[in-house]
């Protein structure tokens, strides 16, 4: 599964990251925490610079994880024909 290692690393480090980097975007490659950045763009640029096209995680450190809600899409109403 893509990013499995990185997501496990984030989950393991989350409590500490919330104390030190809440609101920042962290870059994680495998089990390595590579840094925290003010923007996702900067974190991604650093990830590409260091790891090229290898998988890496860029995530905003938040106590409450975001949930993508789009009722019209999930209910199929976006392209419904009445």
């Amino acid at each position, binding site marked *: 599964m*893509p*990013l499995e290692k990185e*997501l496990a690393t984030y989950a393991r480090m989350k409590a500490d990251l919330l104390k030190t980097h809440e609101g920042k975007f962290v870059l994680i490659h495998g089990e390595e925490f590579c840094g925290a950045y003010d*923007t*996702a*763009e900067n*974190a*991604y*640029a650093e*990830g*590409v*610079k260091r790891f*090229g*096209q290898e*998988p*890496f*995680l*860029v*995530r905003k450190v938040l106590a409450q*994880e*975001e*949930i*993508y*809600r*789009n*009722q*019209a*899409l*999930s*209910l199929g109403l*976006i*392209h419904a024909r009445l």
Partner: protein
Amino acid sequence: MPVFNFYHWSKDHGYTLTGSGPLISVEISIPSALKQHLAEKGLPIPAPQSGFALIDTGAFATAVDQTVFDALGVAMIDKIKTSTPHGEAESPVYPATVSFPGLELKEMPMERIVGCNLKWQTMEGKEIIMLLGRDLLQYFLLVYNGKSADVFLAY
């Protein structure tokens, strides 16, 4: 302030705003950092993917059809929980560069786009590849005039 006006489309194509929704042409390409990396390595740079974006005030984040990222060869950088009628699931998150040719708005970096299966064609044959959510709409002025089937979008 440049203004993109959908009036010509709504009026000239049978006032399709209710049926198709407010659409804007969109071009999605790889993030600039990846473009630079590929250029440095002498690797081919994938061609941008074109289609239409449906303005979706109900979506907090912008979403793009998964096949667009597959065609661009962009790797996911995160996952986000998604709420569906069958409960919670997860969707991949991708970075991309987004341009709106009609607005003359070019190469906006977007680092958090949700990938999902949303591609479809309107009755006029326009292919929707993006749901333009509130993360982008926060930078725009949007006026939806259902009465006259006009949409004004400005930035």
